[in-house]
């Protein structure tokens, strides 16, 4: 790559020292880091080596006057002079670093008079290799990422020869702890997005849109903004994307200082404002909650429509803490219990031990009823006062938490929360779609439960963090429509697209004279602006962030701006632009590096340089975390607020409730990130869309069931030759109407709709254009309705036409195959967890002991199928014998804990990034050709309307010791290694696909087209699909008739020369350690073989006998926020995977096939409240091994008759409602008859 940027030559980056390099491995905490990174560059002038002059160019050697002058200008002598130069407004340090990178080329060329802009291309590392760089070895730099919903993440970025390729969590960062969210991991893709804005565009009144330069803008802005100086900024407006960044906040202060009368709006369309408002009620000041979850701190959690494990600013720490509180290793372990009351089926809902469906507007009523029930029984006078106030609030009748099963749920949950042993360890959490009063009430309940200060803490928020975006945008809009805003500067925000429907921002926008938009990617706002400026990506520029616990982290560039014309560093980021405006001189230097350093000088105090370097190295400013507070709740204020709340009745199919959620593309900003578009949504597994979701019953009532759907055969709609068809519906809320496809999701509250933000982008790029439907016009800015994330009184009418919804998973249930995701209740585990069973192999007559988890599956009654082949590595038929290859060296293995896995998909994205896995687009996904190496299977159990559980099972290649794929490959392309890994040799593979046919786990992925090059069928969506969407939804601007944007989708329309350029940019993201697979080749999980081999080389060089446990992590393991994935050497007694594999919860998926998978799954343990379990379920705790029923003729149990579903239902999780199982498990009724008969014939030997 000769176009790589010179940024890697920056000596300023936190580069670990050589001794640290040895320990700095993926995901490992850097121990004993001193942060001592000396300046590795010379400061100009020729040095000496062994007394001889060192020169780099003939000019230098000749020491001409021109060269001297040039040298003085470009490379002032010494750091002090550099500093002086900066102060004098000269070349900044950043400039210096940049030019330094290009010095080889520059020094020789720049002296030639008349030479135009020098080409800043750098040479390959032929000579002056920067100190820390070893070609082929990645370097890891710390940086941070401002989360779009508040807070931040500390990241480590893997760079190869100056090219960032993968984003990982910073192990030192308190929020990340080595993990990273899907958004952070996928943000690398937005850096290399070929559709990024590449140059400023000026909407010339005379000539229309023209390509401009930053210098043009500076000239324009200098004149334009000067007019506001006298008016103190009156008429000037700023809409700035909310990001938790001290420097950005400082920039606001600076701007407002210069323009005191300007209007400023912090804006984030999907922020969690209701919680902030709730904290204002409860504590009198804006605060943000933080949870301290682990086994010691929390016993009971009640979530009221709160998806606290996903897509909110503290998802990583919450997931980690929740996992800690749920870990079960021995039968002595306890775990916390999760109750969820929710409208949709969220990721958190999938983890629930007990789940109640309730419409979003009814959840406030649930909270009130809960408070009524609890507070009278608990607490002191203040709580009693609240109780009294709450007692007066009447919850409209008509729902069953007045009396039915819901009431029982409420009471048992309340009793559980109030139990003395749970004092201070019980939490009630309010959802972000709930009004502030509900949040305040939950805080009050937590205070009454003495949990605040024990497992729930609060931190004060800054003005910017606490700002209510919606209100500020509404103010701005109002002013603009009155003509009071003449110039609007929009920074990293897209209000033209995502303004709420009750703010007519579009009309207001048109009244603004001049608009300036700074944006990294294409946005609707940028397209509509007078000036659209191409901003620098966070991986290209300096900045800082503040995490939700207050920790401040630096953002440091990994690469020079990709679309910087000739390295002129013209491109600015948000901090630079705002500071430039605040500075008054638009032609001045704007350098975030200096800005950040200046801002940090005060907090860092003395010895700045050392601390600065330390902070860059560690990726955080130590000691900046806010102290968690436990403020007192103002019960009277809460009481007053709750009493003033209006509670809704039960929604009907004429007046529906709506809840808005954030999906994978967040507020829409990740629309052009194909990884996220193709990451299936948690419950529906749909990709590339955001249909309106509703329960099957509601869809039936509204006549909106998907075409071909029947309750009897819910997967039947996927058997049509066409893609599954959703019906288009007209959704109306408050007079605002949107046409949207209707889809069903089991387990949703009836008469409730779920809408996902962020789709239906019109100006986004080739990936995101026209994907899904924009639902922002339906939302409001009202804080009372959960910050506009809830709506009532919606109507949904059948529209005309159908629409294709693509899902990565076409079947909803486990079809009664209970041994796939094995799940059991805690009491059964406690009683039977240590019990082993002897299984006699009827063929060999040998006896083998199987653990608890295996007893739940086929192996309890079915000996493993024998292979006709002798495994060359594994001579024995059961355990690896002492002479087998598998008993030597390091043997890699993985466990996936289904108790801890929440199904978030971070593993999928991390794997995609690490292993260069292609996206295939909606059409190809619909054909069942997704490429993800690790996928998350989702199953519902129980009734289709009200499923018992949502079970998640991540599956990648399980690396069978007796791999069925290896035997059948005719060309030896997939073979086994001595360390137990099933290798895939791409250049050997000819693509017979036989291996994939014979894989019982269906984890092999085939390149049906040239997916790696993005040129499959020319586009992502397929022309027929686009045309179809355009035909039926012209108003949505998604078809050729609606928007010209679609012309850009087809890559064939892009001239070949440019296409080549685009590919180069995309290729830069690819991990050079992993082959990009060509068409016609099979691929699959390799256990991150490249990481194993890197670790092997490292350890060999260091003379270690093997790779120590934890020396490296697989990409999925590294990303998993709940540490559900454990990978390592199973022969190492001290390794974690050795322990997890030996655990009684560990089982081999489909183990009876004798594939001997190296990846084992771990039984999911659930912790139901016995008081909410029926007799059948309780009975199953005594007899959890449902397969015992097979040898029932032995007479040792007869529970089949007592509890029919305990022999047919989920292992250990029989449903509360026995009848509910008929839907999913119908075929199980007769299947065992033949087996029983064969046992009789064989004399019962097989199951003995």
């Amino acid at each position, binding site marked *: 790559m000769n176009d790589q940027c010179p940024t890697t030559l920056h000596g300023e980056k936190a580069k670990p020292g050589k001794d640290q390099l040895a320990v700095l491995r993926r995901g490992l905490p850097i121990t004993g880091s001193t942060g001592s990174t000396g300046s590795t560059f010379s400061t100009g002038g020729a040095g000496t080596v062994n007394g001889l002059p060192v020169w780099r160019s003939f000019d230098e050697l000749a020491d001409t006057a021109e060269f001297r002058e040039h040298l003085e200008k470009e490379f002032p002598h010494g750091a002090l002079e550099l500093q002086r130069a900066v102060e004098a407004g000269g070349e900044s340090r950043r400039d210096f670093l940049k030019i330094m990178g290009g010095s080889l080329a520059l020094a020789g060329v720049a002296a030639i008079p008349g030479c135009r802009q020098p080409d800043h291309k750098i040479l390959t590392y032929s000579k002056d290799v920067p100190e820390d760089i070893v070609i082929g070895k990645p370097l890891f730099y710390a940086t941070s990422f401002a989360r779009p919903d508040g807070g931040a993440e500390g990241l480590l970025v893997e760079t190869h020869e100056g090219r960032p390729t993968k984003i990982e969590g910073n192990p030192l960062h308190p929020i990340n702890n080595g993990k990273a969210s899907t958004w952070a991991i996928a943000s690398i893709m937005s850096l290399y997005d070929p559709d990024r804005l590449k140059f400023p565009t000026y909407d010339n009144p005379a000539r229309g849109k023209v390509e401009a330069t930053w210098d043009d803008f500076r000239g324009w802005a200098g004149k334009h903004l000067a007019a506001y100086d006298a008016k103190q900024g009156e008429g000037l407006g700023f809409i700035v994307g909310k990001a938790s960044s001290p420097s950005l906040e400082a920039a606001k202060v600076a701007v407002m200082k210069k323009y005191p009368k300007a209007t400023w709006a912090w804006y984030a369309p999907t922020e969690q404002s209701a919680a902030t408002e709730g904290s204002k009620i409860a504590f009198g000041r804006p605060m943000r909650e933080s949870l301290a979850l682990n086994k010691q701190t929390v016993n009971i959690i009640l979530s009221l429509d709160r998806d606290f494990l996903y897509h909110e600013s503290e998802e990583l720490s919450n997931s980690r803490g929740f996992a800690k509180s749920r870990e079960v290793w021995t039968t002595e372990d306890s775990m916390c219990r999760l109750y969820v009351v929710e409208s949709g089926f969220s990721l958190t809902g999938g983890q629930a031990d007990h789940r109640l469906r309730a419409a979003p507007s009814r959840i406030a009523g649930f909270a009130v009823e809960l408070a009524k029930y609890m507070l009278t029984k608990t607490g002191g006078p203040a709580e009693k006062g609240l109780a009294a106030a709450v007692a007066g609030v009447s919850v409209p009748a008509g729902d069953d938490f007045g009396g039915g099963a819901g009431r029982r749920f409420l009471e048992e949950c309340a009793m559980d929360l109030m139990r003395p042993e749970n004092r201070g360890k019980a939490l009630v959490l309010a959802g972000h779609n709930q009004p502030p009063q509900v949040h305040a009430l939950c805080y009050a309940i937590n205070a009454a439960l003495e949990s605040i200060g024990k497992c729930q803490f609060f931190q004060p928020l800054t003005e910017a963090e606490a700002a209510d975006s919606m209100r500020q945008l509404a103010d701005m809009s109002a002013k603009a429509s009155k003509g009071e805003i003449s110039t609007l500067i929009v920074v990293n925000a897209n209000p033209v697209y995502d303004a709420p429907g009750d703010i007519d921002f579009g009309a207001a926008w048109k009244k603004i004279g001049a608009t300036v938009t700074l944006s990294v990617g294409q946005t609707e706002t940028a397209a509509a602006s007078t000036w659209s400026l191409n901003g620098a990506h966070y991986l290209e520029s300096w900045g800082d962030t503040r995490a939700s616990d207050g920790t401040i982290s630096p953002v440091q560039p990994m690469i020079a701006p990709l679309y910087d014309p000739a390295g002129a560093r013209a491109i600015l980021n948000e901090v630079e632009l705002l500071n430039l405006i605040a500075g008054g001189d638009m032609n001045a230097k704007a350098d975030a590096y200096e800005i950040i350093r200046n801002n940090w000088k005060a907090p860092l105090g003395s010895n700045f340089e050392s601390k600065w370097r330390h902070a860059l190295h560690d990726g955080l400013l130590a000691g900046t975390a806010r102290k968690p507070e436990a403020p007192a709740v103002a019960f009277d204020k809460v009481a007053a607020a709750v009493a003033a709340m209006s509670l809704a009745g039960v929604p009907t199919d004429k007046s529906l409730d709506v809840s808005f959620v954030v999906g994978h593309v967040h507020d829409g900003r990740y629309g052009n990130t194909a990884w996220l578009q193709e990451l299936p949504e948690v419950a529906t597994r749909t990709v590339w869309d955001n249909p309106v979701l509703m329960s099957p019953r509601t869809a039936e009532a509204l006549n909106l069931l998907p075409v071909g759907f029947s309750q009897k055969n819910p*997967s039947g709609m*996927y*058997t049509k*030759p066409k893609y599954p068809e959703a019906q288009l519906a007209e959704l109306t809320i408050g007079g605002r109407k949107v046409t949207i496809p209707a889809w069903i999701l089991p387990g949703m509250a009836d008469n409730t709709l779920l809408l996902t933000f962020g789709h239906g982008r019109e100006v986004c790029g080739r990936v995101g254009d026209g994907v899904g439907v924009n639902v922002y016009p339906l939302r409001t800015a009202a804080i009372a309705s959960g910050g506009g994330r809830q709506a009532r009184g919606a109507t949904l009418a059948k529209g005309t036409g159908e629409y294709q919804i693509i899902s990565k998973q076409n*079947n909803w249930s*486990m*079809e*009664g*195959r209970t041994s*796939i995701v094995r799940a059991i209740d805690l009491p059964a585990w406690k009683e039977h967890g240590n019990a082993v069973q002897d299984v006699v192999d009827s063929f060999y007559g040998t006896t083998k002991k199987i653990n608890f988890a295996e007893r739940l599956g086929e192996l309890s009654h*079915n000996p493993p*199928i024998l292979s*006709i082949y002798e495994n060359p590595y594994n001579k024995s038929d059961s355990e690896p014998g002492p002479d087998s290859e598998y008993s030597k060296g390091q043997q890699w293995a993985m466990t996936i804990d289904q108790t801890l896995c929440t199904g978030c998909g971070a593993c999928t994205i991390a794997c995609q990034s690490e292993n260069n896995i292609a996206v295939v687009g909606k059409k190809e996904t619909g*054909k*069942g*050709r997704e490429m993800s190496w690790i996928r998350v*299977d989702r*199953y519902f159990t129980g009734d289709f309307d009200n499923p018992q559980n949502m079970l998640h*099972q991540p599956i990648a290649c399980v690396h069978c010791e007796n791999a*069925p794929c*290896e*035997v059948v490959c*005719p*060309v*030896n392309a997939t073979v086994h290694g001595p360390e137990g890994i099933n290798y895939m040799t791409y250049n*050997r*593979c*000819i*693509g*017979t*696909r*036989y291996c*994939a*046919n*014979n894989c*019982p*786990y*269906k984890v092999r*992925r*085939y*390149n*049906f*087209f040239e997916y790696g090059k993005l040129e*499959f069928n020319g586009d992502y969506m397929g022309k027929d699909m686009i045309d179809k969407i355009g035909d039926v939804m012209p108003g949505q601007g998604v078809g050729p008739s609606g928007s010209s944007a679609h012309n850009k989708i087809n890559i064939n329309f892009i001239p070949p020369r440019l296409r080549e350029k685009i590919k180069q940019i995309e290729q830069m993201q690819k991990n050079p350690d992993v082959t990009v697979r*060509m*068409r*016609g*080749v*099979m691929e699959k999980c390799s256990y991150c073989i490249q990481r194993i081999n890197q670790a092997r080389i490292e350890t060999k060089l260091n003379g270690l006998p093997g790779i120590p446990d934890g020396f490296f992590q697989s990409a999925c393991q590294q990303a998993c926020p709940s540490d559900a994935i454990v990978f390592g050497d199973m022969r190492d007694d001290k390794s974690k995977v050795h322990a997890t594999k030996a655990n009684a919860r560990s089982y081999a998926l*489909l183990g009876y*096939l004798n*594939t001997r998978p190296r990846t084992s799954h771990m039984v999911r343990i659930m912790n139901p409240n016995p008081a909410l379990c029926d007799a059948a379920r309780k009975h199953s705790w005594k007899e959890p091994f449902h397969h015992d029923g*097979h040898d029932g003729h032995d007479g040792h149990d007869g529970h089949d008759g007592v509890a029919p579903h305990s022999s047919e239902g989920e292992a250990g999780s029989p449903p509360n409602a026995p009848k509910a199982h008929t839907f999913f498990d119908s*075929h199980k009724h007769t*299947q065992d*008859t*033949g*087996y029983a*008969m*064969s046992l009789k014939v064989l004399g019962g030997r097989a199951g003995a």
Partner: protein
Amino acid sequence: MTTIHPDQLTAERLAGLSRGAGSPTPAPGTGDGTLIETPGVRPPLVLNNRSFKELTDIICGYVENPAPRWWFPIFAMAATIAGLAGALILYLVVTGIGTWGLNNQVDWAWDITNFVFWIGIGHAGTLISAILCLLKQKWRTAVNRSAEAMTIFAVICAATFPGIHVGRQWMAWMLFPIPNSNVIWPNFRSPLLWDVFAVSTYGTVSFLFWFMGMVPDFATLRDRADRRLRANPEGGAVLLPIVPIRIDRLRATIYGFLALGWRFSSRHWHRYEAAYLVLAGISTPLVLSVHSIVSFDFATSIMPGWHTTIFPPYFVAGAIFGGFAMVLLLLIPARELFPHMKDLITLRHIDNMAKILLATGMMVGFAYSMEFFIAWYSGNEYEVYAFKNRATGPYWWAYWTMITCNVVSPQLFWLRSMRTTPLVVFIVSIFVTIGMWFERFVIIVSSLHRSFLPAQWGMFHPTLIDIGIFVGSCGIFLTLFLLFLRFLPAFPIAEIKAVLPQASPHYGHENEPDGHGDVAAPAHGGHH
């Protein structure tokens, strides 16, 4: 005095074969060659009392006379379809396997279905040639040449599919054990590799068998052309008016080359008979092995619905079933369209083959039911589901099409009137061919699309490319067969002559009823 068994007289009368007693040469028969199944009473294998010369003229006439008028349009159509196959295969290779309807759940569908289908078709040829030869079934002589040709062409069609179904067709050579510097050999444990060997062996031996049988006939064609050239040194048809190459010169050259210097000497005949017997012996196990090995593609896997020990015999029976259906499908129209072919392919042949259809149809029917029984009997929920899904799942229509065509439709053949009505046999053969295609489709697709993990269940839907390549392969097959009928001796002249009554040593000794001669070969006439 001559006494003729009354049954024989009845039989002859029924067959329209009765002739005047004491006649030295039999009157031309007018029947169709079918008879009551009476031991010792067999209808003639060649009707109308053809003489040796007449037979030679008829058979060589197919090659030497101008093509019938119907031949050209049909050939043009078939060749166009074959060309379509070529174009689509080119498109497939250039674009990718994704142009088919396959996906990550169903990685094989029409490609391997077509492969197994064509390989199955190819079974009848060698069965007729080899096994019936060893069993001294004389009726085989009329159909064995065309059945063998059909085998070769079917193997060509079949071999196409494994070749193009791989993702990187240009690397398909890696399937062969070619010594290389990496010392990487193919995986000899893979049934797909066994397929390569099985099919190539089968193709080779079948070709040799076919070709060797044609050598004397090539010599006949050569000699006839040569004689015409000598008789008329100046005249004779030319290839094209502007290309003054005489066709007989071409024939003499090409057939002469193919005849490998055959001179009809007794020594040649002696060697020929021995070699023929040896090849028949070699081919016989191949008939059983090829489809057994093809069935291993499925049987050795672990997928429910594939992992079945019954597959080898079941596949062989199915292959014979499908192969005979195809023979009938080709020969019934051919005997209508070509002059005098009805004399050679009589209703007796059709009747015999219909009986084989009935028998093998019952075998596959038994196999279908045993699969269900064993699945149920195993108690393995995945097995049970796989078969239940076959019959009642999304592909139920394919399954029931298969049952209807393969099990139900041949039941007509319990009635002799059905067996001896060519139209009925033709229609049933179409059904059986469709049914046998669906059998492979059902086995492959319905097993794969819903395997162990319900999360990974999917569907297969064919694309136009899928369909086009299959139709195209039919075009290739038909094109080759039409060329065969036109340019190669479609019947083994010498062998047919050997089953003529005149060839019998007892020919003319009609007054010596020995009770074991063919009816049509009157047991009198002395030794010639």
